[in-house]
Every structure is written in structure tokens, then in C-alpha cells.
């Protein structure tokens, strides 16, 4: 006998868990953001030093004694730099180094040893990046490489240019940065326990009334999360202001030092070019940076956390958790049986599917597969490009319509036409053959059945290639037969319509056995007495067909048609192998278009969005069709 649910307890548990989630996540996010800001601060300052030193070394001529003197002087005035190395490509040599390991017989100048191949490759990578960016006129590749070294120090590398070419590389290693700001544990605990205490008091006052308890808990949660978020954002803002101040101070410091080291005849140093990003583009100054962007992102994050916390509160407070627990424990055994299959499905089906959906929200291409997805996030941009492009057709100069075959809507229309015509042909031919095969007393029926199933049994890859050969203009069977009857050979793959016919006939040939088998099975399950009764009543063959045969076929045919529609909608093999989209991409269906975007144009994010849209279309179709025909009612 269950006791009456205690709302106070439920909302109490819900509030506690929601606070734990909300405050916990917020604290972690704050710590993460502060650590990221600290990294950015260290990186910007290091880049300023790197760029200043680059100017000095380039002014000293990249190789030779002046470089070594300059580097030694710089190292003396920068005790925080753990190591400075200059590598020249010509001769694969280490020109200067303040690394304690490069002393004695390993002192510069010397040729790089085998273990230092990575450094040489890094230099060549930078050279290739500078060239690529220059040739493409865009900032696509990083011209400064920043890597994390032991203990939180940074390894930076920049290219050294002489006479317009990259002739060497400068590497520096910064000192270990100060430890990050501690996580404000005591503040978090205060923010956690205080509202719980207030709620306890409220619960005692309000008793077991659900609505007031809900209001009280929600208000407390909202207030606490709001206050905590505001404080966090203030801390982060202060961090950013401090970063800008420190970077400006560093620029000033390096200007003085670099100015003193550059030889009188060499080019003057340019401090304005030192505070750059990794593409060596100057960062906008502190005044130019609009604070809105980071703040808006921060607010969105806190909103997300708040929604999660409220969901948790609702889940526990409204009794849903209790109900879930009861169900799980009552059907324990059943759930245990499902667990292995669920695990397999999660790994093999759900995870890849969800990953594909995640990629569709990014702009991943072959050039940036190494970057994490969060860097490439573009939200619904891919979907916008696909669904928002209405340029289906243009008027050509001579007045005819020129269709844009890459357009999503054209491809969708074509796919629908393809599917409808194929399924119609398949069902008609299959049903017809099934009716013929079903006549009583047919001799050699098993042989006919086997022969008629053969098209389905052969791998459709081979069938597609054979049919493609049959439609060859000069040597294909179809044109030979046409010529025997006195006609002109047709160039099948030249016009969109004839090309469509080739794929249609191939797929029609492939798809009728499936329908035939389904229909045959369903026909054989109709008892013969009904037909007897109908004949006695005086019904004609056609009336018998409409009144008896078709309705009995419905429960089998409708699911078969749904399956066939989904298969034909995604019939990649036939379109790809028979027409290949010829001529000029006019016979592409959605799935082959997605394939070409992914593996010929290498735009993985766009192609993923395309496939998600295909999935949604088919899902909508399946649901609607199912509901309308109520065909799977019996299942």
C-alpha cells in the first residue's frame, strides 16, 4: 500500500538537485572560463614578445653572429623566457639557441639532429602556411603555431622572412604561468545551503499544498541562479579588462627593448604589428572590441544551465521521478532483457546518427577535420542554405527555362517523381504478375516464380552496370533492337528525360519481384469461397477485384509500399551507377546529391545537413502514411 506522496519532500529533493546541478555547472563553467582567459592572456603576451623578437632577428639577418648576439641580449633582458631557438632552412641548421640543452658540443650553430626533425617540419609547415595564405589571399592557415608545453608553459613558433620568402623559424618557450584562480568553493556552498534553509522554513509554513510549494521552490531557484550568474559575469569582465591592460603593458615594454637591439641600418620595428592572432593579423584594440559578443554567449550559457535546473526541479517536484522509479522496478526483468540490444543500438545506430546531426550544425570540410566541432559551430546556417535557396529555374537568353540542378527543391521534386513512378510501376507489375501466377491450375508455377524472383536475387550493383551497358549508344542492346525495327538509335544519357527512363526501367525491373512476392502471399491467404460467393451473386471480375482482392491486400501491401517508398527515395545504387546524375546532374536524387557534396566537394557539414533533411522528410512521410492508412494497427 503506497503512502500519499509528500509534495514538500519531492520539491525539496528537486530543489536540492536543481541547485546542485545549477551551481555545480556554473562553478565549473566559471573555472573553465577563467582558465581559458588566463591562457589567452598568456598567449597574447607571448605572441607580442614573439613578434617583437621576430622583428629583431629578421633585422639581424636570420643567420650568422649578429643573430646570436641579438638572441643572447634578448634572453638576458627576458629571464622569463625559458628557451629561444632560431632555425634556418638553408642547411637545416640551428643558428642560435638559449636552451640549456644546446650547450657545449651541441651549441649553435650546428646542423639539426635526427630528434629535432619535428622542429624542422614545423618550420616547413609554417612556410607552407604563409605561402598558402598569400596565394589564396585569405587567412586559412595558422602562421604562428602555439603548443602547450610541460607545466602550462607555451611553445610558440613564427616564420622568419628574408627577401619575401620564409627562410627560417623562431621558437620561444615561455615560463610557467601563475597558478589559476581557485574555484570559489565557499561561495558555492553558501549559494547552495542558504536557499535550502529558506525552502525548509517555507515548507513548514505552507504545509502540503502543491502549488505554493512549486512557486516557492521556483522563485528561490531563479533568484539564486540569477545572482550567481551576475557575479560570475562580473568576475569574467574584470578578467578581460585586466588582460587588455597587461598586453598593452607588454607591448610598451618590448618596444623599448627591441628598439635598443635593432642595428641602426636595419628596418625599424613596428610595435603596432605585435599584438596579433595566430594568422598574424593585428587584433582590434581594447576600445574597438565590442563587449557584447562574449557577454551574450555567457548569458546564453547561463540560460541553458537554468533551463536544465528547472527541468530537474519539475521532474522531481511533480512526481515524474517517482513514477519512473516505480515503472523501472516493476518491469525490472523486461528492462534487463532489453539492455544488451539497447547498448548495441546506441553504439551502432544512435551515436553515429547523433554525431551526423551534430556535424550538420558545423561547417566541417576536409580542411578542418582536425578541429573540434565546437570551433566550427554555425548553427542552422547549412539548413538555411539548403532550404532557403529558391533559385530553381532561370530564363535563358533564348527564352527557355534552365533548371538549376543543384537546387534542393528541384532535386526533391525529381526524387518524388522518381519514387512515385517507380513504386507505381513496381506495384502494378508486381500485382499483375501475382494475379497471373495465382490462377488455379497454372502449370510450372514454381519455375515461373523462381524466374520472376531472379531480378531481386541478383546483386543490384551488377544489374545496374549491365543495364547501363545495354543503353550504350552504339553497341547497347536497346539501340540495336530499335535499329532492327527501323528506328534511330537514341543517345540515352544526353537528355534528362531519356536518362530518367533508363534509371526508371532498371529500377522497375529490380523492384517488381518484391511487390510480386508480397502480393502473392497475400492473395494466397484469401479464401476461395469468397470468390465463389461473389460469382454466384453475379459480380464481374473487376467488381470482385475491387471489392474482395484489394481490401484483403491492403494490410500487406501498405507496409510494403511504405518500405518501397523509403527504399526508392534513397535508391543510391541505381541512380549513381546507371546515370551517374547525367546529363549534368539533372538526374540526381537527394541521396546521391548528398554523397557528391560529401565526397566530391568535401563539405561534410553541408552534406550532413542534407542527410538530416532527407531523414526528416522520410520520417514525416512514414508517420503520416501510417496514421492515414492505419495499416500497422494490428501490430
Amino acid at each position, binding site marked *: 500500500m503506497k503512502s500519499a506522496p509528500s509534495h514538500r519532500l519531492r520539491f525539496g529533493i528537486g530543489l536540492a538537485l536543481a541547485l546542485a546541478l545549477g551551481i555545480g555547472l556554473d562553478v565549473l563553467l566559471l573555472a573553465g572560463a577563467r582558465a581559458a582567459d588566463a591562457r589567452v592572456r598568456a598567449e597574447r603576451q607571448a605572441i607580442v614578445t614573439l613578434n617583437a623578437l621576430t622583428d629583431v632577428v629578421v633585422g639581424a639577418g636570420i643567420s650568422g653572429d649578429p643573430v646570436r648576439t641579438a638572441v643572447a641580449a634578448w634572453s638576458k633582458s627576458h629571464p622569463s623566457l625559458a628557451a629561444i631557438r632560431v632555425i634556418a632552412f638553408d642547411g637545416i641548421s640551428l643558428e642560435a639557441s638559449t636552451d640549456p640543452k644546446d650547450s657545449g658540443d651541441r651549441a649553435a650553430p650546428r646542423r639539426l639532429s635526427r630528434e629535432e626533425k619535428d622542429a624542422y617540419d614545423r618550420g616547413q609547415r609554417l612556410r607552407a602556411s604563409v605561402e598558402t595564405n598569400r596565394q589564396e589571399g*585569405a587567412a586559412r592557415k595558422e602562421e604562428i603555431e602555439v603548443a602547450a608545453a610541460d607545466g602550462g608553459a607555451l611553445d610558440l613558433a613564427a616564420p622568419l622572412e628574408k627577401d619575401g620568402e620564409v627562410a627560417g623559424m623562431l621558437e620561444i618557450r615561455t615560463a610557467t604561468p601563475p597558478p589559476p584562480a581557485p574555484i570559489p568553493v565557499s561561495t558555492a556552498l553558501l549559494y547552495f545551503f542558504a536557499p535550502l534553509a529558506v525552502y525548509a522554513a517555507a515548507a513548514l509554513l505552507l504545509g502540503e499544498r502543491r502549488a505554493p510549494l512549486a512557486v516557492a521552490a521556483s522563485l528561490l531557484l531563479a533568484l539564486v541562479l540569477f545572482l550567481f550568474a551576475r557575479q560570475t559575469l562580473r568576475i569574467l569582465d574584470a578578467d578581460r579588462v585586466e588582460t587588455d591592460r597587461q598586453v598593452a603593458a607588454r607591448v610598451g615594454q618590448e618596444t623599448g627593448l627591441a628598439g635598443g637591439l635593432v642595428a641602426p641600418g636595419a628596418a625599424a620595428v613596428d610595435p603596432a604589428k605585435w599584438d596579433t592572432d595566430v594568422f598574424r593579423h593585428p587584433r582590434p584594440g581594447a576600445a574597438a572590441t565590442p563587449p557584447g559578443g562574449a557577454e551574450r554567449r555567457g548569458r546564453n550559457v547561463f540560460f541553458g544551465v537554468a533551463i536544465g535546473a528547472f527541468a530537474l526541479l519539475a521532474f522531481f517536484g511533480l512526481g515524474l521521478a517517482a513514477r519512473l522509479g516505480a515503472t523501472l522496478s516493476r518491469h525490472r526483468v523486461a528492462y534487463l532483457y532489453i539492455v544488451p540490444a539497447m547498448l548495441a543500438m546506441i553504439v551502432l545506430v544512435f551515436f553515429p546518427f547523433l554525431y551526423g546531426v551534430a556535424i550538420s550544425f558545423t561547417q566541417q570540410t576536409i580542411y578542418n577535420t582536425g578541429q573540434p566541432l565546437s570551433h566550427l559551430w554555425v548553427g542552422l546556417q547549412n539548413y538555411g542554405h539548403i532550404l532557403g535557396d529558391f533559385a530553381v529555374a532561370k530564363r535563358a537568353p533564348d527564352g527557355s527555362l534552365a533548371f538549376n540542378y543543384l537546387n534542393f527543391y528541384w532535386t526533391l521534386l525529381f526524387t518524388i517523381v522518381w519514387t512515385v513512378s517507380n513504386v507505381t510501376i513496381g506495384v502494378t507489375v508486381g500485382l499483375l504478375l501475382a494475379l497471373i501466377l495465382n490462377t488455379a491450375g497454372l502449370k510450372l508455377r514454381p519455375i515461373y516464380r523462381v524466374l520472376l524472383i531472379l531480378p531481386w536475387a541478383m546483386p543490384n550493383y551488377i544489374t545496374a552496370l549491365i543495364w547501363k551497358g545495354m543503353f550504350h549508344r552504339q*553497341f547497347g542492346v536497346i539501340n540495336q533492337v530499335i535499329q532492327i525495327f527501323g528506328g534511330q538509335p537514341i543517345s540515352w544519357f544526353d537528355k534528362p528525360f531519356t536518362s530518367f527512363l533508363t534509371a526508371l526501367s532498371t529500377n522497375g525491373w529490380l523492384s517488381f519481384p518484391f511487390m510480386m512476392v508480397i502480393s502473392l502471399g497475400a492473395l494466397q491467404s484469401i479464401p476461395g469461397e469468397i470468390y465463389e460467393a461473389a460469382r454466384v451473386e453475379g459480380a464481374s471480375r473487376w467488381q470482385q477485384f475491387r471489392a474482395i482482392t484489394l481490401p484483403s491486400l491492403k494490410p500487406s501491401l501498405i507496409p510494403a509500399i511504405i518500405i518501397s517508398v523509403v527504399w526508392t527515395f534513397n535508391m543510391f545504387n541505381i541512380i549513381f551507377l546507371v546515370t551517374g546524375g547525367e546529363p549534368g546532374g539533372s538526374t540526381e536524387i537527394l541521396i546521391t546529391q548528398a554523397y557528391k557534396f560529401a565526397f566530391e566537394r568535401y563539405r561534410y557539414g553541408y552534406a550532413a545537413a542534407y542527410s538530416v533533411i532527407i531523414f526528416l522528410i522520410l520520417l514525416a512521410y512514414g508517420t503520416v502514411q501510417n496514421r492515414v492508412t492505419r495499416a500497422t494497427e494490428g501490430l
Partner: protein
Amino acid sequence: MRTARTLRIVALLLLCGGPLFAAEIVVWHAYRAEEKAALEKVAAAFNASPAAKGNKVTTLAVPYDAFADKISAAVPRGKGPDIFIYAQDRLGGWIEAGNTVEPIDFFLDKETRARYIPTTLEAMTYRGTTYGLPLNFKVITMIYNKKLVTTPPKTSTELVATAKKLTNKAAGKFGLAYSFADFYYHAALLNGFGGRVFDPGVKPVLNNPQNVQSLEYMLKWFKKDQIMPAEPSTALITSLFNGGKAAIVFSGPWFLGEIAKGVDYALAPLPTIVEAGGKPMRPWITVEGVYVAAPSKNKDAAYEFAKYLTDVAAGKVLALEGRQTPANKTVYSDPKVSGDPVLAAFRKQVEVAVPMPNVPEMTMVWSPATTAMNTITKGAATPKAAMDAAQKEVEQRIAELRKK
């Protein structure tokens, strides 16, 4: 007694453990039949030679269709081989994807560089850095039926004259049959007229005047001189040549395996183009290179094997038994290699050939170029219009890819 037993056990362990300390170098390739046998022979010879320094090479044949995708999927995650052998067409894409191919400039000294045919080494270079050692090359050349053609034509005028005499469209006989609608084969004419696909900085220039000129010239052979069959698929060309219905074919070493036993064939260099000022036809070279995988743990040992594989001794085995044409120049000074008519013919052809671009943008060219070739050969568009359309398409694809 106990000491002796311990010593025996230790000795046994050392014997078994010895090979454990040596590195195992895994090599993936997509060869079958004789090429596979030749490669395995070379690997065994390496394992027995002092150059191996106790390392052991094992080869694994991976089916060709899946090879490139397997490399793209497995190698960056550290699950692939130490060395893989593949053509240069996917090289740019793998380099841009990262963590797949190791640059070997650091290991490569001047004398090793000098032993390769220069264009093959160019094919292994991407943006100034060398990423692999060239193993062998494939290039198309002229293959003719000796019964039908007594002296192979040296210039395009001779070619047209010879082919016209041997063409009888009604009987299905053609003087010249090659995949002229395939952009890869057309590159021989394209490069011969001075055209190219990319300008430096990887800017596509598909519609430049020389390219258009080369296409008009190909149409002349097809429409005016009428020496070639329509819709030339590889299956069609093979059956025509084997049936004695095609006198001259432009194709590569892959075609030789398809020739029927009764056909007496010979090879000759592609003719020079009189209308282009006597310049030779310059087909594209497909170079198979030996690449060291970037996540490999035995890069030095792997490079040693790569160097051995592209050296003279291995080259002789691969040439004479594997029927490959090595990229190492010095292999051809061996009389057995230079005496083989097939190997000598391809070696002569590669002198005027051009390496196929290895940049990732090249993959975006094939589809629009094929469409253009189809429209041109079917007469649906003029060469200039078709190439303009292809150029626009390629520019758009590259812009989409580079958009940040």
C-alpha cells in the same frame, strides 16, 4: 644445476625476445598477382639484408577500392601501417586532413633526390615539401596492332593519314580508339597545346585558350577526320582492339593485361602535334609513391625501407617481375630492363610527360570536367562554352570549400 637451468631459460627468452626488440614495419599496398609477388620478394630481400638492421617488414594487400578511404580513416587515428603505397592523386587531401603523411625533406639528401626522374619527385611534392619517395609511374602511350600498322606514326598528320586508311565506320573498324571523352586521357592533348588545369596558388584555369584549342583539335579527330568511335568506354576499346577493329590505342600499362593472346602489339611514343608547332603530346603521369605514415612509431626504419624499395636492386625486381616502370632512373641502365620493349617505351614516354596535380582541389575538377567533355563530344556545347561552365563550377566549389 640450478644456474645451468636458469641460464638455459634466459637464453631461450632472449632468443624469443630478440625479435621483440626489433621494430616491425607494416606496409600496406593494393597490388595483386605479379606486382604483389614482386613486392613480397623485395620485402623478403630487405629483411635478409644488412640494411634492415634487425627490423622486419611485413606487407599487407588491401583491396584497391577501399584503400584510400581506409588510409583516410585509419592512419590519422594511429591505427594504420608504417608505410603505404598509393598514387599521388589523394596526396593533397591527406596532407590537408593532417596526421596522415610524414614530410621526408629532413631525411632526403641530394644524391637520393637526384636518382629519381625529376617529374616523379615533383609529383610527391606539395607546397614545396616532399612527402614520399616515388616508386613507379604510369603514363599513357601509343599501343598499336603490328598487323595493321607497319610503322607507327610520329606526327599527328601521319597519325590521321594512317588512321583514315584503317577506318571503316560501317564495318565498325576504327583507326584510332581511346577514351577521348575522359579528361584524364585528354590531358595528353591539353598539356601538349600548352594548357593546364591550375595556375600557381591553385587557381583553376580550365577555360584558358590553350585548353579550348586542344578540345577543338580533339573534335577535329572525332568529327572531321572521323577516325574514332563514338562513346568510347574502356570495355569498348578493349573489345575493338582485341577484335582487330582498332588499329591504334592510347592507353597505359593497365591496358596491356587486357590484350588477347593472338594480338601482335607494340608500343611507341605518342605523336607530336603539328598544329601546335611540333610539340609532343604530354600525358599525365600517375606516380605511385611510398609514404611514411605520420603517427608511425618507427619512422627511421620505415624510411630506410622506403629508400631500399626505391633503390636499383628492388627496382629491377619490380620492373622485370612485377612489370612496373620504376621511377628510379638508374634502373634503366640495366640491359635487361632497357631491353624490354614495354618498359623502354614507357620510360621514353615519361620524358615528355607532366605530373598530374596532387592538390586536393583536383578532386573537385573531375566531375565538372567530365560533364564538359561529355557535352563537347556529344556536340551539345562548343568547347569554349562547356569549359566556361566547368570553370565556373570549379571556382564555386573551391570557394565553398575555402570559405571560413
